[in-house]
């Protein structure tokens, strides 16, 4: 009954994003056509290199895996009304923690080592962003700016450590830490080339969703995010909530750093810092800070990045075209967010007809 009566608002949630995707494909098609490339060839390549085969699906998922985790670093504090963009810094710190733990405990059984790496990454990344939360709560420092600054500081720390105290002297021309033992690497999911980091990301997103939507803690967070004064009057420990949420946020990005170290690089070096953090911010915003939607958006972005590779290899478009495409997609999706509740068609027709004139949408 309930579902039936609200099918229009449900369909709104499905149709608007799809319409936004189609619109952005059209806009990008026009952009390509103006630059002398057949847009239909472009669409075909985008589809084939992102989702066209089991091979390309795997490529998309490999690219999406770190983004799910880094997106949570923005999505969780956002429910508390904080705009945190320190994802890159937390990822880097998590990577440093992971490699330190992985090297320190390398003689233990692989499972123990991996858990130690994950815990170290979670703690280090968590504390990094918790610092942002603490500065906000106790000193009133704007969290967007402080987290942005801390990105640069984290990268400087990484470079200093990698070229100084933690450097493996045999890493001659690309300064790195000592490598992890091969048994301690994070393996691929059997039958595919996607590593287990994808599973970590999926689990983290699901947990985050239930934590925020289905628990008292999450209710407190959402209340404080809605109106901080009312939350304080209601006796909610806003300070503790801020610190806890920021810690969780940072720990997710830190875990992404651990996955990068354990599954991809097997050591820490400057390659840890390649913009997964910034892409994560975008994923969180486009997913409207919903952890489950972040999964889908991360896969979408993974597909976009994969198609960027295909466009270069198959059509000879230059490497920036995927940036243009990405920009168009995200701008159009952000635009589409303002369309919710604006289109008459999606209004549930439960209201008695006599009130209709007064509820006309304000265009």
């Amino acid at each position, binding site marked *: 009954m309930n579902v039936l009566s609200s099918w229009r608002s449900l369909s709104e949630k499905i149709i608007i994003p799809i319409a936004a995707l189609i619109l952005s494909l059209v806009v990008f098609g026009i952009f390509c056509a103006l630059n002398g490339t057949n847009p*239909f060839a472009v669409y075909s390549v985008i*589809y084939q290199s992102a989702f066209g085969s089991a091979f390309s699906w795997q*490529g998309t998922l490999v690219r999406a895996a770190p983004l799910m985790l880094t997106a949570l670093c923005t999505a969780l504090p956002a429910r508390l009304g904080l705009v945190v963009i320190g994802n890159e810094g937390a990822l880097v710190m998590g990577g440093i923690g992971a490699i330190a733990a992985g090297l320190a405990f390398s003689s233990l059984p692989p499972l123990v080592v991996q858990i130690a790496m994950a815990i170290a990454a979670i703690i280090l990344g968590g504390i990094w962003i918790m610092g942002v939360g603490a500065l906000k709560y106790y000193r009133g420092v704007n969290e967007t700016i402080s987290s942005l600054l801390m990105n640069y500081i984290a990268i400087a720390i990484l470079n200093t450590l990698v070229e100084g105290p933690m450097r493996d002297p045999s890493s*001659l021309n*690309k300064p790195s830490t000592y490598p992890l033992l091969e048994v301690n690497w994070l393996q691929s999911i059997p039958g595919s080339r996607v590593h287990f980091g994808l599973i970590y990301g999926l689990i983290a997103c699901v947990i985050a969703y239930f934590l925020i939507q289905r628990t008292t803690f999450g209710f407190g967070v959402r209340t404080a995010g809605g109106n901080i004064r009312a939350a304080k009057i209601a006796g909610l420990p806003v300070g503790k909530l801020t610190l806890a949420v920021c810690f969780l946020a940072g720990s997710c990005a830190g875990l992404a750093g651990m996955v990068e170290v354990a599954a991809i690089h097997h050591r820490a070096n400057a390659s840890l810092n*390649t913009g997964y953090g910034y892409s994560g911010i975008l994923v969180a915003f486009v997913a409207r800070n919903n952890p489950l939607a972040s999964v889908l958006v991360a896969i979408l972005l993974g597909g976009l990045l994969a198609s960027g590779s295909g466009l270069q290899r*198959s059509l000879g478009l230059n490497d920036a075209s995927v940036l243009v495409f990405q920009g168009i997609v995200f701008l159009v999706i952000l635009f589409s967010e303002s369309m919710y509740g604006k289109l008459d068609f999606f209004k549930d027709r439960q209201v008695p007809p006599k009130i209709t004139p007064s509820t006309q949408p304000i265009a």
Partner: protein
Amino acid sequence: MKDEKPLYIPRRQIIRGIIASTAFGVTSQLWTGCTPSEPTTTDTTATPPASGSELTIGFIFVGPKDDFGYNQSHFQGQGVISQLAGVKTVDEANVPETATVQETMLSMINQNGATVLFPTSFGYFDPHILKIAKENPTVQFLHCGGMYKEGVHPTNVGSYYGYIDEAEYISGIVAALTTKSGKLGFVAAKPIPQVLRNINSYTLGARSVNPTATVQVIFTGDWSIPVKEAEAANSMVDQGVDVMTCHVDSPKVVIETAEKRKIFCTGYHVDQSQLAPNGFLTGSEWNWGKVYTTYVEQVKAGKTLADGGIPHLVRGGLKEEFCKLSSYGSAVTDATKKEADAVLAKFMDGTMVIYAGEIKDNTGKIVIAKDKKLMQTDPTLEKMDWLVEGVVGKIG
């Protein structure tokens, strides 16, 4: 005219596409249906492809292809072999040293049919190339940097690198014969062996003709950070430096800054003479086209890395044409040219040794003992962690 090949949609891809069809897939299938062509590559080959035996070669760059630097030098090499009959090249630029490059290599192999790959950035090697090479034993992976270790790395991986420090040595000679202040400047990215070797050879070259010359070095910390490079160049000019060179990804900023400050410069990676018509002396250039052509000939002859037909480690300097000297600029005097050409001739007949003892580092420690000669192929030179006497600057 672009050659329009008869284009087709591979049946396997359609089947895969249908299997993997999703909501997004269904809509996209419509577009695929009306796609007039299924382009597989853009590169035009000079001659019609030999039937069935066309060789597809993939190039991967870490930055843009036309940066007047490292990536451009490899892209020029790609340009040379794409002209060869029966060779088709695909490329991808701005590929970071992460899982992305693994995906790019796999896509080139599986989607473009590449059987030879040139992932050109140093950082691609470990772990990315090693991992993909192990999984694709029939594909040849050729990496720039000389990292291959027998018995440790997959047998279908090969390394090549050039002793460009020979050209740096001659650049140093030209610089030291041109300078008036006796102070030369070197903007460097990171204190790693490759870079240190260039700085040391440049300095040794300079001091071989002008024993009091000094080389000031500034490390910017990053491969491409234009504002810092310009700042480093400017502050060295302020310190009285009057010939400048660099080892960064794209030397354009340093060369142009030198020209603006009306001092001399020597280039790196590719020919930069047009950037500094007044102050350009000479420079060290890569000559990858020659190296790549040799590889292509070997592959076409049916040789592979695994069966030993293609050597795993290929290196060379001026003599082997891995690198070359840019032609002298207008500011170089005839006497200087003569002196530099004499040394060049010694490199060409193989009698020149740069690292011949006794050599001290700039803290006074003896790093190469008297009567000891380290040939270019000596592996200890690839672990260099010192700056030679005459260099002003520190690694730490």
